[in-house]
């Protein structure tokens, strides 16, 4: 019993010590992040009132009393939303195609040379660690304001993220088909095309669809830095306090994201089913 008590006590001390460290870290962080409970408590009522204010029109009526007035810019917003979706689509596809080429060069089991693998890995790491918006800012300088900068930013980030995932997929393949094709004297790219690619294609497509979901959200905020899409109108509405416009655009984005999510998850389940059948 005494041994049990001692063990419980040491466990308790351990837990307390860790909690103390976490609390100290939070305290230091709060000082650095200029947290002020007073300011927070004085202003917190503005958070719900801001959210509620979003659902009132300029004339003081709730938005649902006049849907036409709420969505006054529907045509423009739908066009921008379509542009956002296209940005996500083109960015995802370009990034995924580039990533699926790089994956074979970066996978430990099939990479033609060690140094190529290391270079590819580092490159992918760089592409996914630098945030999309930073790429977008740089591309806006090079390509000018507009959706092209956003597409390229999405594509680069997708390349980095998918390059890693795809390489992991390739590392998990069955090597026998590759060896079989190689044994007939086929070149490396032929061995990859007929030995490895058929094994990984459905997984690649599934990851790319998942990435598409993420990229739709990402493309929606590209406009914050002038890189096209609906974000431009959203940030303008927020900055200029056009409350009902903010809620209208947000509702449209949320609906689009929800629809895209359910469509892609449907497709992904079909893909996984396809893989099971083979």
């Amino acid at each position: 019993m005494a041994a049990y008590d001692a063990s419980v006590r040491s466990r308790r001390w351990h837990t307390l010590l860790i909690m103390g460290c976490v609390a100290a870290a939070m305290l230091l962080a709060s000082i650095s992040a200029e947290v002020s409970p007073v300011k927070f408590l004085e202003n917190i009522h503005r958070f719900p009132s801001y959210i509620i204010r979003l659902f009132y029109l300029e004339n003081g009526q709730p938005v649902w009393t006049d849907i036409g007035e709420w969505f006054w810019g529907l045509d423009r917003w739908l066009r921008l939303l379509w542009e956002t979706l296209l940005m996500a689509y083109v960015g995802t596809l370009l990034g995924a195609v580039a990533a699926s080429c790089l994956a074979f060069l970066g996978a430990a089991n099939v990479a033609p040379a060690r140094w190529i693998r290391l270079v590819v890995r580092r490159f992918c790491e760089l592409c996914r660690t630098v945030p999309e918006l930073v790429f977008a800012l740089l591309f806006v300088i090079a390509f000018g304001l507009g959706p092209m900068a956003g597409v390229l930013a999405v594509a680069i980030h997708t390349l980095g993220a998918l390059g890693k995932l795809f390489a992991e997929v390739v590392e998990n393949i069955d090597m026998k088909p590759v060896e079989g094709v190689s044994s007939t004297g086929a070149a490396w790219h032929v061995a990859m095309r007929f030995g490895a690619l058929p094994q990984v294609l459905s997984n690649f497509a599934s990851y790319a669809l998942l990435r598409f979901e993420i990229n739709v959200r990402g493309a929606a905020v590209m406009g914050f830095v002038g890189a096209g899409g609906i974000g431009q109108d959203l940030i303008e509405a927020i900055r200029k306090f056009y409350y009902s416009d903010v809620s209208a655009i947000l509702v449209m984005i949320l609906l689009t994201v929800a629809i895209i999510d359910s469509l892609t998850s449907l497709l992904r389940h079909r893909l996984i089913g396809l893989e099971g059948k083979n």
Partner: protein
Amino acid sequence: MDAVRDRYPEHFRRLGPQRLPMIAVATAMFALLLFGMERLGFFDGKLLSGMGRLVEIAGLMLPPDPGSWAHARAYGMALIETVAIALLGTLSAAILALPVGLLAARNVTAQRIVRFLARRSLDTIRSVDILIWALIWINVVGLGPFAGALAIMTSDIGSFGKLFSEAIEAADRKPVEGITSTGGGHFMGIRFGILPEVFPVLVSQVLYYFESNTRSATIIGIVGAGGIGLHLAEAIRTLELQQTSFIILMILVTVAAIDLVSSQLRFAMIGRRGGVSG
């Protein structure tokens, strides 16, 4: 060869009928890609000149150079602020998300309506991008890192709530049954039956998010919510490209360091708990 071809004609046909749907899908995707690129201005001739300028910009970014000591100090402080924002946002989100996660878990909350509401609100929170949360919080507590920490907290409550509820649902039922059989109530069952089991999983998820939040914290400064993002956006917009690359390098090093620490901690956590009581 011809004899083999005569005997197995189906293996020599270039396009079997079973490949037709695949080809149709690929063609449609390619057509949509071309259409999208056309709509987004890829063929306006901006692409090539932009690429040229991009190479020029990349050249001007080397070597990374903060410009002066004062700048380097300011960047260092901003980076500490960024990490503080991420730490504060992640930890407070984890604390707030635990009760919500319990409400959304099937084996804890029996009322279907409560569970449904908890899940829907988590989904809504998650669909709104972190930058939009940052803009909303700026309206409430003003410009600065505090708004950034609150934005990370809000958007992470959505992710943590979902992840936590999934972890809790995956927990073993038997400890809870054991506690119920000794006369413990519902609350006791959660506290002593479920929480000890899922706690290491939750902590490892929090640590994982801390790393990705550091990355997010670097961009919320672009909209004015504190951290290094403000300096970064400023350096890019004023074409101080050597400073830009210096800041990006600092971010990369910091993210890599945090990644290392958090993965070490994660292993230690899961290893220790898993070895002793699991």
